[in-house]
């Protein structure tokens, strides 16, 4: 099975799409054209009325945005997602028991009604919060993708009008000039020097010329069709609109992208795993104690109320909101580092990325041609290719260089756009093609004002570059007023230039071009070509004064001047150089265990050269071809496993089976895919995903959008990217820089670690909330903590501290470890749950119970008196309940004491959570290694925690519905020794983990 045919879905894109349409539709177009063209006065276009009619029929010329989930569905999803179901069940139980108790005429029935309402409110509020967070992050994107409305110059009612491109209809005649974006799919009826950039559609970055000629059956290939959203680079054209909106080629691809399903993000899977786990614990403990309480002869109704308590105690109500906040904080931080995250969960996905499939042009490279090497005087010189060069440092003393620089300067049609004197040279906008721009900037950097040099050497004749000659030539007067000779300068394909030369300049002297020197030229040419660089040859000739006097009429058509026996001066090679930050970033990826795969439409040699220079292919590794060359054996004889690197050509990829692709992805650590079409990118992505990798893909073109969608995290380019790509992506790189991805990865890994800490922190106190219920049921003591109070911990004191953990710095270099294994390195693993639940949680419970017993004992109820008192304690009619000293208590006095107990328990948990917060700062290092004060937000968290507890205790102590009472000051300190114990114990745990890596302790205690 060939990949090429493998996917019916993409066949559409590969060309056979428009074939049937061709004959019928073109005929129709022709009719249209004739109808709206006045043969004498040029096209008259549609009438406004007719255009309005068609607009009404076809709709506006815009891509339908991807189908969004209705807001209400999104909202409802938040209402039932996560723990919500569990809490709804709790609320339902509350209402049921309220109903039953009301029917029985029990006074306290309304407590259950309120509890149910509170639970429902909790679900609704956290739901609204999550919904709001999601909506907010979506809005960032919405504002981003809103572009300035495009204008189109259209001929209607025989008049030229500027209208919004959305108003275009089939049959409209539009005029396009260089720099415009094509407003719809159009067939050209007139074109002059028109070139378009179809890279967003086909991935080929070479400009393509457009004319009125029908050259190919395939609409994607034929020269007389220009496509919506591509750019016209130069020239002018007039065309008739043949397709608008979603019916354009781009529109069809975009709708294809929306068909590729969105996979669940790794963090979503982790959170789901965590929710299942906690829900599993809650439900099993709930059911277990339901059975226990029923068999202990509690009433069913009571047992149900216990069940509610157990559920509420077990569910970390605030945690999912906290996770959302932490993710959005990271998203904000990433946005500052030029990674705009569309989908919050993608923040972490980036961290677990194990393969990055990166584009070359623009992402790894600067996306501009730059002179990289020179060859003259039989020597190769290297030029500076960094982004903001101001000088060149190679040896410029030779006379040959003087001659070469003159040719480079003069034989060049490119010019800086005016008014950019203060802009750094490398950033100036230039009119001209990529190579000429490179040469212009190069000479401007070295020689200073190029335009001045050109004006001093007036141009008298010129033959522009064309593909048959493969050279460019111009003739200039010299700047030396005494030298009346004309200077002929020529540049072009090196072999063509050499053919026209009989001498070569060495150290400023013309020497005959013998075979030895020609050999040297060949070597240099091959070497530079082997670097993947575009090489140009330069030569000149001083025309003798006697043959070509001042007034000689140069005629470029008859070529009345010599174009052979010239003097060869040198070679210049250009490349789109890598961004200076990229090699470092790639190196970071490598140490972070992330495989970087380059996927480019460029030539394999160029691709490989860039891959080598940025480190995607490391200096020491070889491809199969390299080994074959070194050993001088045929490629087939090389053991494929010996080669760590591979350069795969798109043509080879086309003929590969899925297994072969898998084998390549598996066996080579350094892979470059060259000459690939954007469609093949999707196949590569799928291949990587078959290796169980989390794949990040960068892309900018419309055709990349299926791959971006398919990838675990699609990264669109913010500058060069098309809207479709940005729509399909999960993240937008604002500066198009690969290095930004790496900082994103770092943030993603950090947030994964920190979420672990947050969850460990949050889970711990659940045990301290749960134990009271269990002991209450089993030992029949007065209830130590109420359901409402638990909610105040979960949604009150604990929220800010758990968010604060998101600000924690990494413990060690997180970029030095492998990406996490999706299946093994869970967010919440057994160790984390067990350590939080069964160790720290239990210590916390004990501390809180000590406070509870202290409060009761000092009021007259010694611990032993409390055991087994539940039934009488809660009896409303017993108003002379005797304590350990013989004093008698009314029901309300007991209830008030019980609330004091709640408050004491609450305060103890809060105090111990402070210690819990501190120990969760690190998982392995000592707190003192991490620095107690480095993360200031933690302290904000601690203070907020205590402040909220103080407010609840003393501020709202008089509001009976909240069940808080003003607590005696000393009770705040009862649990402090346990808080210290928690800290000391955890330091001890970390110490053993550091001391004995791989030991039993490490395996069981490290989470």
């Amino acid at each position, binding site marked *: *099975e060939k990949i090429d045919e*493998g*996917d019916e879905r993409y066949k559409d894109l590969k060309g056979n799409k428009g074939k049937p349409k061709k004959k019928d539709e073109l005929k129709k177009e022709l009719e249209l054209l004739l109808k709206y063209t006045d043969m004498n006065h040029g096209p008259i276009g549609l009438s406004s009325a007719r255009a309005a009619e068609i607009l009404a029929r076809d709709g506006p010329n815009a891509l339908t945005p991807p189908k969004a989930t209705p807001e209400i569905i999104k909202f409802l999803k938040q209402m039932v997602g996560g723990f919500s179901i569990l809490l709804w069940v709790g609320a339902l139980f509350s209402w049921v028991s309220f109903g039953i108790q009301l029917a029985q005429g029990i006074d306290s029935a309304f407590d259950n009604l309120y509890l149910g309402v509170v639970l429902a409110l909790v679900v609704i509020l956290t739901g609204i919060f999550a919904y709001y967070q999601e909506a907010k992050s979506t809005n960032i994107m919405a504002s981003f993708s809103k572009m300035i409305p495009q204008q189109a110059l259209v001929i209607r009612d025989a008049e030229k009008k500027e209208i919004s491109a959305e108003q275009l209809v089939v049959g409209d005649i539009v005029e396009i000039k260089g720099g415009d974006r094509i407003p719809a799919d159009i067939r050209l009826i007139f074109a002059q020097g028109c070139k378009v950039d179809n890279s967003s559609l086909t991935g080929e970055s070479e400009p393509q010329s457009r004319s009125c000629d029908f050259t190919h059956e395939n609409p994607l290939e034929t020269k007389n069709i220009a496509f919506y959203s591509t750019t016209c680079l130069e020239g002018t054209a007039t065309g008739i609109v043949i397709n608008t909106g979603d019916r354009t080629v781009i529109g069809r691809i975009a709708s294809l992208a929306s068909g590729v399903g969105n996979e669940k993000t790794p963090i979503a899977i982790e959170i789901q795993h965590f929710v*299942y*786990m906690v829900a*599993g*614990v809650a439900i099993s403990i709930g059911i277990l104690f339901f059975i226990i309480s029923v068999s202990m002869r509690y009433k069913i109704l009571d047992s149900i109320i216990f069940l509610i308590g157990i559920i509420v105690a077990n569910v970390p109500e605030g945690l999912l909101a906290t996770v959302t906040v932490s993710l959005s904080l990271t998203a904000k931080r990433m946005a500052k580092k030029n990674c705009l995250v569309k989908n919050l969960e993608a923040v972490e996905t980036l961290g677990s990325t194990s393969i990055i499939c990166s584009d070359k042009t623009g992402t790894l490279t600067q996306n501009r041609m730059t002179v990289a090497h020179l060859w003259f005087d039989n020597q190769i010189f290297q030029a500076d290719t960094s982004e903001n060069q101001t000088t060149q440092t190679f040896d410029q003393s030779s006379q040959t260089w003087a001659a070469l620089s003159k040719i480079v300067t003069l034989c060049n049609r490119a010019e800086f756009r005016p008014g950019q004197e203060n802009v750094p040279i490398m950033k100036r906008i230039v009119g001209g093609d990529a190579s000429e721009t490179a040469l212009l900037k190069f000479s401007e950097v070295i020689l200073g004002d190029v335009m001045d040099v050109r004006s001093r050497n007036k141009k008298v004749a010129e033959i522009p570059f064309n593909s048959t000659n493969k050279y460019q030539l111009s003739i200039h007067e010299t700047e030396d007023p005494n030298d009346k000779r004309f200077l002929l300068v020529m540049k072009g394909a090196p072999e063509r230039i050499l053919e026209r030369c009989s001498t070569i300049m060495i150290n400023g002297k013309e020497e005959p071009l013998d075979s030895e020197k020609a050999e040297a030229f060949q070597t240099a040419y091959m070497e530079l070509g082997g670097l993947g660089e575009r090489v140009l040859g330069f030569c000149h000739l001083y025309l003798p004064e006697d043959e070509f006097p001042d007034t000689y009429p140069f005629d470029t058509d008859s070529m009345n001047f010599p174009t052979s026996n010239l003097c060869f001066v040198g070679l210049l090679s250009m490349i789109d150089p890598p961004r200076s930050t990229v090699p470092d970033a790639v190196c970071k990826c490598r140490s972070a265990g992330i495989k970087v795969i380059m996927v480019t439409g460029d030539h394999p040699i160029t691709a490989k050269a860039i891959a080598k220079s940025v480190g995607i292919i490391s200096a020491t590794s070889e491809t199969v071809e390299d080994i074959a060359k070194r050993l001088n054996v045929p490629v087939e004889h090389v053991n494929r496993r010996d080669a760590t690197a591979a350069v795969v050509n798109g043509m080879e990829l086309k003929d590969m089976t*899925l*297994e072969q692709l*898998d084998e390549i992805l598996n066996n080579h650590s350094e892979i470059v895919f060259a000459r690939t079409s954007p469609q093949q990118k999707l196949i590569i992505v799928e291949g990587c995903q*078959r290796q169980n990798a989390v794949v990040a893909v960068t892309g900018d073109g419309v055709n990349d959008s299926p791959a971006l969608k398919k990838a675990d995290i699609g990264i669109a380019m913010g500058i060069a990217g098309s809207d479709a790509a940005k729509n399909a992506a999960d993240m937008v790189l604002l500066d198009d820089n690969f290095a930004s991805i790496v900082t994103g990865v770092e943030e993603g890994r950090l947030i994964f670690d920190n979420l672990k800490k947050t969850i460990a922190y949050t889970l711990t106190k659940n045990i301290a909330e749960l134990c009271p219920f269990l002991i209450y049921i089993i030992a029949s003591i007065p209830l130590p903590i109420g359901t409402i109070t638990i909610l105040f911990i979960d949604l009150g004191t604990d929220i800010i501290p758990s968010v604060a953990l998101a600000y924690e710095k990494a413990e060690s270099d997180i970029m030095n470890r492998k990406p996490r294994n999706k*299946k*093994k390195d*869970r967010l*919440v*693993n*057994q*160790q984390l*749950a*067990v350590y939080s*639940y*069964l*160790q720290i949680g*239990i*210590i916390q419970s*004990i501390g809180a*119970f*000590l406070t509870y*017993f202290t409060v009761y*004992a*000092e*009021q*007259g109820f*010694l*611990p032993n008196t409390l055991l087994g008192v539940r039934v009488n304690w809660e009896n409303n*009619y017993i*108003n*002379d309940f*005797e*304590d*350990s*000293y*013989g*004093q*008698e*208590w*009314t*029901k*309300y*006095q007991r209830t*008030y004491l019980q609330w*004091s107990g709640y408050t004491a328990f609450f305060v103890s948990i809060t105090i111990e959570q402070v210690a819990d917060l501190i120990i969760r700062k690190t998982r392995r290092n000592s707190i003192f290694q991490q620095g107690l004060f480095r993360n200031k937000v933690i302290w904000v968290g601690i203070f907020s925690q205590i402040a909220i507890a103080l407010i609840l205790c003393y501020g709202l102590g008089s509001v*009976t519905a909240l069940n808080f009472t003003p607590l*005696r000051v000393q009770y705040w300190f009862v649990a402090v*020794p346990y808080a210290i*114990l928690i800290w000391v114990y955890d330091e001890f745990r970390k110490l053993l983990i550091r001391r004995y890596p791989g030991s*039993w302790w490490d*395996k*069981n205690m*490290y989470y």
Partner: protein
Amino acid sequence: MDMNATSRGAEGQPGSPHQKRENKQGQRMQNSGREGREEVMAKKTWTDVIQEMKNFLWDPENRTCLGRTAKSWGLILLFYFILYLCLAGLFAFCIYIMVLTLNPYTPTYRDRVAPPGVMIRPYVRGFTIAFNVSESSSWLPYVDSMHHFLAAYNDTVQVEKNIECIAGQYFIQEGDESKQKRACQFKRSLLQNCSGIEDPTFGYSRGQPCILLKMNRIIGYQAGAGTPVSVDCRVQKGNESDLRSVDFYPQSRTFDLMYYPYYGKHIHVNYTSPLVAMHFTDVKKNDFVPIQCKLNGKGIVNDVHNDRFLGRIIFTFNIGM
């Protein structure tokens, strides 16, 4: 809690069968066409989940239960046993220290138990005293409750255990905290018609029930601050004429000062709370009559909204004739 099958703890055993199976699955996936892939994955999840669960519970190859071998279980259980033993010891020690700091005779704080609450006898599940004069079984539980409660007030018991005190002043016993304190006599006979001595049915057989009112005990509480606390009863919400006459015993309607302060059950062993008996001689019959009895005196609070037993009590008569 143990839901994570692929934990680090279990990592030690390489090539567990379910990993192998996964590999096989992977190969199959590659061999089958792309269209078939989703199908295979769906199948995998269904059969594999059961198999995985089984393996998780008991893996015969590695002899692991819930992902741990016997040795591993032994170690971890031993660890938790020691940990919890230490924690339990620590907790017990803390509780012990905490109890040591307490005064065994007087609670550290008495702010929550004061001011005193009020209770009545008879107490038979609730505060509705409903009976039918003609059916003795309907009022016998009340009478039994009264007799039971008053047994401690028998004149013989009181004379034997308690001393006679000087009425009208607090019986303050200074001296060592731990010294046993004497209690003042409160003879049942003081309650006269409600003593149950002459009328063992406390008037219930005649539709004129007696109710005993007692004030909750609070250590060191000097009720009334010099003036004895008195009691009065009236119909709560309703027709005042439903309650035509009440006799109080002792006639002063007060709790004498000599019964205060209370020193706690450990040193004030034979202390019996003073009582005020109320003989409801003329209550509207065959109807619910809610009655509120209040304490009045200095330091007595009887109008707190939340606590309807603080310094007052509400009970309802429904006497059938």
